[in-house]
């Protein structure tokens, strides 16, 4: 849209003067809020709001057959839907490549950090629990990655595992009776930086994203490890920028972790 291009130029001009349209510091988040346990039917849920961006995460826990090469591990899957309610560019139909990338970035962080101890999710030989995290974008106003990662993390933390009932050879879950939390390890949050007109911004809003040439995301854990990273968009980053963004992600993570 033409108006987007004019706005993008405005954003770039402001950044040249070291300013952001909403008056934020380059390395500051918009206000973040997480609502937990928003639904009853699913095992865990959360809505993460960063500024006007809203991402919902729902966790379902089901019985599943393990992957043949991982017989002694439960399953973990992250899906993502760009619902047309969230933005005019989100169309119904086959999954958007952006939604696939987002789901896979969130998945990699949680998986690599061993956030959920999958080895404790085995019910019986050939029967395991599957943890299905679905991300649902409600309102797209920039920085979906960090909002989605926090919503997913929060929903996983508050998810309650249903009771396993056995009837002879047959196992089933009693979703009415929930017992305990998932076996959890370290938490994960992400920090996403956008390169706009040569400068680097944390937590870009949608206008800033439209003006951006690319982004870099780092996933960090409770104990200060890096568990995932993704560069996206055509911008390149120098080694020095890379190093300083790793340090910035680790610094920012404390505030984010408190909200989970």
């Amino acid at each position: 849209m033409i108006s987007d291009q004019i706005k993008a130029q405005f954003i770039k001009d402001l950044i040249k003067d070291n300013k952001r349209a909403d008056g934020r510091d380059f390395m500051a988040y918009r206000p973040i809020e997480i609502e937990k346990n928003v639904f009853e039917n699913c095992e865990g849920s959360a809505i993460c709001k960063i500024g006007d961006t809203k991402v919902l995460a729902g966790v379902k826990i089901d019985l599943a057959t393990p992957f043949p090469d991982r017989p002694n591990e439960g399953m973990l899957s992250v899906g993502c839907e760009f619902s047309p309610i969230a933005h005019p560019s989100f169309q119904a139909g086959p999954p958007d490549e952006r939604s696939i990338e987002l789901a896979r970035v969130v998945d990699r962080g949680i998986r690599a950090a061993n956030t959920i101890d999958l080895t404790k999710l085995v019910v019986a030989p050939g029967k395991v629990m599957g943890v299905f995290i679905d991300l649902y974008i409600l309102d797209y106003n920039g920085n979906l990655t960090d909002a989605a990662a926090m919503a997913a993390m929060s929903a996983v933390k508050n998810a309650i595992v249903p009771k396993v009932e056995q009837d002879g050879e047959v196992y089933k879950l009693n979703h009415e009776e929930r017992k305990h939390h998932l076996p959890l390890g370290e938490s994960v949050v992400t920090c996403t930086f956008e390169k706009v007109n040569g400068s680097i911004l944390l937590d870009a809003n949608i206008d800033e994203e439209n003006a951006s040439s690319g982004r870099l995301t780092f996933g960090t854990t409770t104990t200060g490890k890096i568990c995932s990273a993704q560069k996206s968009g055509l911008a390149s980053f120098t080694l020095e920028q890379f190093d300083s963004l790793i340090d910035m992600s680790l610094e920012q993570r404390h505030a984010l972790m408190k909200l989970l």
Partner: protein
Amino acid sequence: MSSNSPDKPQLIKNGKRLSGRSFTDLRPLKITAGVLKQADGSAMIEWGKNRIIAAVYGPHEVFPKFLTNNKKALVSARYVMAPFSSLEDHGRSGPNRRSIEISKVAKHVFENAILTSRFPKTIIDIHMDVVQSDGGTRIAAITAASVALADAGIPMKDLVAGVAVGKVDGELVVDLDKTEDNYGESDAAVVISPRTGDILLFQMEGLLTPEEVKRTVRLAKDAAVQVREVQVAALKKRYEQVASELGEQIA
């Protein structure tokens, strides 16, 4: 990655990797430019057991027309794995979630490298077909596509080069093979522009300290210089003849 799997072999013995390589040795790497007749540019990469064919078509007109950009060429990238390409099971043909994500980030790399403003109102199609996979397919595919683009005469800021760096048995090593990829503790796919040293692609998973991540990109940067040498050799081999004939015109 399943670094705690009971099947995990000892990946490093006496300072050497299972394959006998040192921590920074690359697997045997060979690139052949101009392997296809129809395509405007093409390359085949043989990297370890990886066999990937890259083909470039264009720049050509954009269909459908309304997608045309009047300021620059569009870039499309398609990374796919053939159903018979892996040692284990028969895969499904066509794109899946993994290949769609890889295609997307590969496209970003080439949107950066190609001087797209030279060909407004056109599109450049880049195809990367993995016919045999052996760990590190995405960076091998991008490395091959870079040669195919040069072979097609597409103007670029650099021959971009990729490499994977990961942690196996507690050590950071360069160019993971399939086993190291399967049982390692971290894996990062990195694409570098050797001319500037800038990072064009970075996808990482695993648990690393900040210092290890910083070392990861530095190891990748050094390896990219070696990879570029192989790319250069491939293009030299293909163009030496053409070059000598044009040399006469310059003189």
